[in-house]
């Protein structure tokens, strides 16, 4: 699985690479994907084989780690509909595969979930779950729990109604589907549903918290990572922002968007829900990772999860009940004043509410949030969460005419600008128990890569301007960095090779929403191109170039 374990920690127990020898880290081998779009995938290593997915046209490559030079074993291309290119909102990324029981499972941009034979790359089954012609797409990494492969959809910007689906690992047949909006029957909400907060209790809130029928196009897509607690037998995932209506047209909390569900995997039945951003105004998808950890509190062991949200708060929840134990800002926030732990609701700042025809300046975080999809890592050794994230604010005004499919409309002009400190990105270490930031590293661009923590006390992340970096897990001190041909927005992983050596692997290949300025060669003179990202990213095309590679590093001369 992409996150290394069900808890979503992205922690490697390997410790050959340490603070004192990481300087000897060097490229062991590489593979160029020959694709120019954003590479957000995590390499997955199972039984001496490394598997990695690519952006559209959605290839899977397998490499034999037991042979010198780790040669390619097989590759597969999904040959999707070319049309899917125009339909996906934010570059044509793929966030990785799941490998389980001798099968490789992955999603394609044009809504197929495909199972391959892990040994040969032969297609075992291929099911179509959505319709590109209606704006649906899929980008997330599946998760396998028991005999189910769990997948979700993307496309909230196009009026898609979000869902999480469970397919049989045997043949891809649909076991259950839980919608993020609509009646309880569609959301798989039944007698087991026990949300912690009063506002989430009642019948059919997925309909009643919307004006009539608007939930049918309500968004709440499921495109982030899923985590799972086998002991409680609960899976956890976030739902995307509500859409595609103007907020004035979707009065209400817009459940179950921009929140987190806990569900039973066998039936899909919901156990609890909590909404990070009721009636979201800022495109604050709630899909960011939920990292599971346990801690002693008040004389007993508590089962917790930590979640850095797009809205700027770092939440710690009791993962049995959905109670919010703490919610503190990890980034600069002007759109709200804090989270009321009694009601669970954020206290919103009316002065930053966008309205048609009104310029709202300095709304922080901007639409990509204090942190977008880029997954953080948790080290049980330090007890810290390592968070790659953004430092972005936005100026928004709804004015300019634009043009889609024959129809002029009044589009929003949004401009993202770096927040305080003028650096658009940050990599920080956060103590979830004290709710305090321990250290931080400013980066010029949003840190759009995932993080990796290791037992060697070294933490890895990549930057969009093309560096792969290793820092001290305790202090944040920069220990090592390597230049890469293209910026990094992938998910670093560590593994032990058949030769017994510890390796670190990551994909480079800039892109994604923040990297469109490079892969699409956007006009950096137009502040609103790339949905507002060009101001913050205007120097990136000079710093790096497009092009995907799998990079595998090891210590020179061994450990």
């Amino acid at each position: 699985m992409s996150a290394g374990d069900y808890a979503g920690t992205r922690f490697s127990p390997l410790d050959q690479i340490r603070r004192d020898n990481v300087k000897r880290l060097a490229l062991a081998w590489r593979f160029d994907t020959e694709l120019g779009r954003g590479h957000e995938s995590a390499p997955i290593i199972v039984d001496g084989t490394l598997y990695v997915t690519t952006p559209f046209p959605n290839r899977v490559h397998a490499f034999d780690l037991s042979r010198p030079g780790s040669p390619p074993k097989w590759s597969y291309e999904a040959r999707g509909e070319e049309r899917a290119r125009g339909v996906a909102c934010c570059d044509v990324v793929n966030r990785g595969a799941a490998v389980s029981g001798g099968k490789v499972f992955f999603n394609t941009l044009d809504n197929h979930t495909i199972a391959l034979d892990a040994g040969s790359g032969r297609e075992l089954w291929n099911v179509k779950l959505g319709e590109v012609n209606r704006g649906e797409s899929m980008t997330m990494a599946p998760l396998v729990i028991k005999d189910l492969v769990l997948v979700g959809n993307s496309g909230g910007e196009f009026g898609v109604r979000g869902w999480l689906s469970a397919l049989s690992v045997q043949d891809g047949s649909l076991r259950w589907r839980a919608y993020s909006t609509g009646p309880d029957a569609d959301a798989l909400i039944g007698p087991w549903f026990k949300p912690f907060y009063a506002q989430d209790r009642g019948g059919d809130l997925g309909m009643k918290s919307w004006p009539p029928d608007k939930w049918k196009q309500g968004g709440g897509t499921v495109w982030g990572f899923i985590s799972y607690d086998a002991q409680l037998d609960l899976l956890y995932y976030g739902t995307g922002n509500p859409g595609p209506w103007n907020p004035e047209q979707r009065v209400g909390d817009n459940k179950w968007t921009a929140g987190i569900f806990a569900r039973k995997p066998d039936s899909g039945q919901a156990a609890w829900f909590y909404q990070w951003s009721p009636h979201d105004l800022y495109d604050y998808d709630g899909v960011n990772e939920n990292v599971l950890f346990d801690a002693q509190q008040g004389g007993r062991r508590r089962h917790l999860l930590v979640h850095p949200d797009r809205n700027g708060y770092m939440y710690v929840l009791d993962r049995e009940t959905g109670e919010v134990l703490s919610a503190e800002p990890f980034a600069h926030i002007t759109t709200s004043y804090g989270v009321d732990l009694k009601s669970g609701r954020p206290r919103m700042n009316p002065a930053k509410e966008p309205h048609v025809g009104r310029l709202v300046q300095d709304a922080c975080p901007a639409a990509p949030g204090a942190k977008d999809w880029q997954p953080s890592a948790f080290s049980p050794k330090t007890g810290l969460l390592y968070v790659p994230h953004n430092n972005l604010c936005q100026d928004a005004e709804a004015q300019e005419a634009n043009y889609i499919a024959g129809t002029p409309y009044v589009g929003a002009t949004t401009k993202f600008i770096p927040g305080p400190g003028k650096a658009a990105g940050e990599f920080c270490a956060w103590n979830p128990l004290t709710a305090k930031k321990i250290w931080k590293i400013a980066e010029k661009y949003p840190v759009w890569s995932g993080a990796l923590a290791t037992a060697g006390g070294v933490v890895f992340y990549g930057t969009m301007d093309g560096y792969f970096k290793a820092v001290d897990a305790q202090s944040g001190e920069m220990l090592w960095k390597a230049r890469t041909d293209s910026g990094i927005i992938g998910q670093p992983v560590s593994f032990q090779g058949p030769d017994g050596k510890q390796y670190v692997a990551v994909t480079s290949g800039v892109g994604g929403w923040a990297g469109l300025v490079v892969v699409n060669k956007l006009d950096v003179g137009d502040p609103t191109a790339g949905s507002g990202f060009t101001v913050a990213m205007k120097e990136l095309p000079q710093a790096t170039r497009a092009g995907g590679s799998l990079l595998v590093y090891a210590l020179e001369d061994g450990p």
Partner: protein
Amino acid sequence: MMQRWVSLLLGLALLGPCVSAAEPARLRVCADPNNLPFSDRERRGFENELASLLAKDTAKRLDYTWWAQRRGAIRSTLKAGLCDVVIGVPTSLDLLATTKPYYTSTYVFVSRADRGLDVRSFDDARLRSLRIGVQLVGDDYANTPPVSALSARHIVDNVRGYSVLGDYGHELPAAGILSAVTAGEIDLAVVWGPLAGYYARKSAVALQLAPTPAVDGEIPLRFAIGMGVRRDDVARLAQLNAFITRRQPDIDALLARYGVPRP
């Protein structure tokens, strides 16, 4: 061997100028292959007809690059050099350079003629109870002007949305909002004129079309449409402007045939 090379070279030398002399200059147009009444791959849209008129007028061969008109279409096609002209864009669009407008259209209120509604204003009290369809774009704060006009009046519960992109698998992808009017699922739709005009001409059920007001507060509901070229393509822009001036009567007749509402 040597001789073969020589003759081959000679052949190429003869062929070269021959081909370029026989080949007319090309008019390279980017268009959506499935977006009637504007364009489609069978060239049944009015933008197809206008492109043909332009090609004929300037004695050029018409070449199409087909690309769905989604976000990024202009960037991926015109700006990437796959074509030189986009036939229909609002002249207020600052992504590219636009000609002078060759028509202006408006959003229209559409209802079944047999209902006799005759709605002409967003302040019509009946808008609070009629079932109203609007076209949705997708991004927050980026919706069509009628959505803003209704939201500003807190007309919410009776408003239904239809994707402006519609179902691309259908022949008239965006027509769902209009078939909902003819089927009586909604009482009134507020739709961009050219789509409504075209649909009304083909509809078995008589529809009434009435233009909306030109503006609502600061929000315009009328848009001038011209042709688009790359910002630095100044010479072509001048040629296109001259064509529009010269052939405006023909363009007017073409638009009238497609029922484009022109207030």
